[in-house]
């Protein structure tokens, strides 16, 4: 089921009413069943895969906790990792590996087909719930948390529909206690949830879905028909589309959970206002960045995970060694690969590793500058390069990535325009609106929040958003992150 649909809104109202009416245990059963129904609306048979993932890690975690011997604990952890990652590899990467291996063999003159033609449908959200279930088992292995005693509680956490398909990537330690505690109904939950859902739907159906055709048409043009300015514009425009789309999903997910009194961490914080590549990853898909740091980057650098500190990958101390950089690049390559089975995603990851590295090397030279000057110049330099990073994320061929990047350094390609004037205008206005929205949220909102003007603005903005959501609400497209 997708959020931008009437079916979902009716489903949500029903779930929220039931949730607040039922006693604790019945709530958990209801959440699990309804979440499976939510997932089953896409492909019912794949709910079995989801249940399998829950059963596997619920019991493996218990076994790990029971055992004292390190080797035995590790064996169970490996069992969980092999099965979880094995399933992910089968559904997401098998065709990619097969195709690549066959191309390598073909380049040596062998016309071999390792496997017959495969048609595998990627289970929606598999990358997200696999990460969540892995983190649970690893946390139990590291003795950061005790295993959950009740299977229904664990199942509720894993399949909880707001985060099931595209995150935020939750940790059992943050959510399970909230399920276990008896929650008291409060209208504040409903108000906050309602607002987040309306804003999320606004971002998705009004902004992202209407930017999408411009992006699709632009990227459908051959590279030769695009000027360098077009490439930058498309990079920005796709950057806005994916931000609105994904941020919308997170808003709606957080809003749905709030309706039930459950709190998720924020997943976005004006990422395009980041003053450096490092700061960007503290503002973009925050839950994934933290997951990658705790379960991939730190183990690769050989450092101990500290759950108390929320550091960005690039902030980890003593990481300026060769091992540190190797870990950084390997982490980003894997992060890219997690997004999709295509070399272009690996390039996207490595591109960001490069930006972070350049920032590490250059930032000490600007330390003497006034903070405001440093921040503004940092933003002006970082934003275009962060946006350019969306090119390998959006195009599907490595050769096209090369053509696009080459064009941006060809000065002759800056002398003409290849798209309609509206595209540049919309891109510029969107950027302007993001900046205004950031300034209002950061500097004006806290001052007027509890005043009459604040209340009035709130009602006006919400009313216009409601009207536009009614007009534009259509399941015309899925959320972009569903494919990951």
């Amino acid at each position, binding site marked *: 089921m997708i959020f931008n649909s*009437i*079916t979902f809104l009716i489903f949500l109202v029903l779930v929220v009413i039931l949730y607040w009416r039922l006693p604790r245990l019945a709530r958990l059963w209801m959440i699990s069943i309804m979440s499976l129904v939510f997932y089953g609306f896409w492909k*019912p048979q794949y709910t079995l895969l989801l249940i399998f993932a829950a059963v596997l890690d619920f019991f493996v975690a218990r076994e790990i906790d029971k055992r004292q011997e390190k080797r035995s604990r590790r064996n169970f952890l490996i069992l969980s990792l092999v099965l979880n990652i094995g399933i992910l590899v089968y559904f997401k990467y098998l065709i990619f590996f097969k195709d690549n291996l066959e191309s390598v063999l073909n380049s040596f003159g062998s016309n071999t087909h390792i496997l017959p033609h495969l048609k595998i449908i990627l289970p929606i959200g598999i990358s997200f719930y696999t990460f969540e279930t892995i983190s649970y088992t690893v946390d139990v292995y590291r003795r950061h948390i005790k295993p959950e005693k009740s299977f229904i509680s664990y199942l509720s956490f894993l399949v909880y529909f707001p985060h099931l398909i595209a995150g935020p990537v939750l940790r059992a330690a943050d959510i399970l206690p909230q399920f276990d505690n008896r929650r008291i109904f409060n209208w504040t939950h409903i108000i906050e949830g309602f607002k987040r859902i309306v804003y999320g739907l606004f971002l998705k159906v009004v902004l992202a879905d209407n930017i999408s*055709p411009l992006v*699709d048409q632009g990227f459908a*043009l*051959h590279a030769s028909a695009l000027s360098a300015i077009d490439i930058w514009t498309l990079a920005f425009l796709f950057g806005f589309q994916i931000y609105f789309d994904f941020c919308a999903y997170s808003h709606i997910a957080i809003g749905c959970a709030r309706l039930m009194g459950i709190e998720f961490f924020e997943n976005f914080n004006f990422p395009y206002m980041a003053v450096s590549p490092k700061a960007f990853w503290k503002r973009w898909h925050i839950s994934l960045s933290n997951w990658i740091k705790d379960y991939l980057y730190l183990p690769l650098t050989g450092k101990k995970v500290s759950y108390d500190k929320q550091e960005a990958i690039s902030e980890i101390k003593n990481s300026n060694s060769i091992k540190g950089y190797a870990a950084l690049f390997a982490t980003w390559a894997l992060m890219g690969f997690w997004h999709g089975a295509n070399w272009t995603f690996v390039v996207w990851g490595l591109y960001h590793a490069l930006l972070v590295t350049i920032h590490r090397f250059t930032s000490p030279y600007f330390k003497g500058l006034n903070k405001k000057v440093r921040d503004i110049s940092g933003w002006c330099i970082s934003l275009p390069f962060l946006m350019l990073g969306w090119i390998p994320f959006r195009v599907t061929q490595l050769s096209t990535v090369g053509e696009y990047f080459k064009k941006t350094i060809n000065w002759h390609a800056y002398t003409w325009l290849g798209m309609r004037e509206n595209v540049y205008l919309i891109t510029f206005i969107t950027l302007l609106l993001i900046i205004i929205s950031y300034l209002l949220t950061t500097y004006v909102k806290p001052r007027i929040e509890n005043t009459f003007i604040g209340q009035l603005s709130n*009602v006006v903005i919400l009313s216009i958003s409601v009207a536009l959501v009614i*007009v534009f609400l259509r399941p015309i497209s899925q959320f972009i992150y569903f494919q990951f």
Partner: protein
Amino acid sequence: MFKSPTVFVNIVLPILLGIGLLYFYQQRLRSAADLGLGEGTSSYFPSVNNSPIHITDPQLTDSMVAGWKARGSRPVYLWQGNSQLHGVNQYKAGQVNCIEFLFNKLNDRHEEVLGASYPNGNMQEFLLSLLYLHHKFPIWGFIQPVFYDDMREDGIRAEMNIPDLLKKVKEDSLYFNNIPSIKSMVSNDSLIAGVKADNFSGIHATAQEQSERWLDKQLENTWGIWKNRPDIRGNLFNDVYKLRNMALGIKANTIRKMIPGRYADNYQAFLNMLKFCKDHQLPLIIYIPPLRNDVSPPYNLTEYNNFKAQVIHDCETSNVICLNLENLVPVQYWGVKQGTSFGGGTEIDFMHFQQGGHQLIADTIYQTIGKLGFK
């Protein structure tokens, strides 16, 4: 009613006000089909015995062909173009457009014409439309205007994403392989970028599609606003467009520059159209469409003259008739339309003329058909 007044202020009031805004906005809706033409110009799509003889949606082709068959499958010409064909400036009840004029005239010859026109169409769409319609009925002769404006347009409209047409494009790939944008779309098994065929594309072939379509239908049947949503969206976009024009001072006579990438793709589509007609021995009349000559056109004149010269040259090279009808329609048949920006008054309509202009152009095409002796 509510335990806390904040519930009313934060939930109930915004919902009520939001719906109220929509009711208010709904009062001033214009039909989506006429929005692109501007007030002062109306769409006119003729039909005979309830079967269309002029369509703007290729999905109506079957109904048009059924009418043609019912009338005795007479030799038929296809006339394609943009909204100039269906837009009648200062339209009055009972007036007709060029397609109907030519249709009536051809009755004497026991022949007929069928029309297909697409607002803001581009040459790539015209090529696709020709391929599709040629596949649907035996075209006797083909009439195609080549508009400079259309060379700035791009993209294929959702109505053209027909499986049958996609199949034909794949079969006749030699007419599309050298148009990168179409080639890349076809490789994604679609004729439109992004494969967004309809409002339900995001849940296509899932269990949710049925429930969503059912709920959507129920809402359409019971709530006027829901039913009018496509028109509300169209009007909202039109208002944004007007706001842009007002802010940037854009008027009907503002110079529009050529867009190199689009021009290349569209011009290639035109050349492929010439080749298609030659390969299929399809008699063809190309014309440079009428243009207002009392005011300077909204084009860069050097670019426009180069375009014209290129079209005439390529038609000559391919032995195709190319009529230059730039000066065919006199000043009195052109008109004005409601301004395209807020508070902008009226503006010159450069594209659409009054019924008199439609008659003139139909007469010219009729005479050319006669001279060429297509029969």
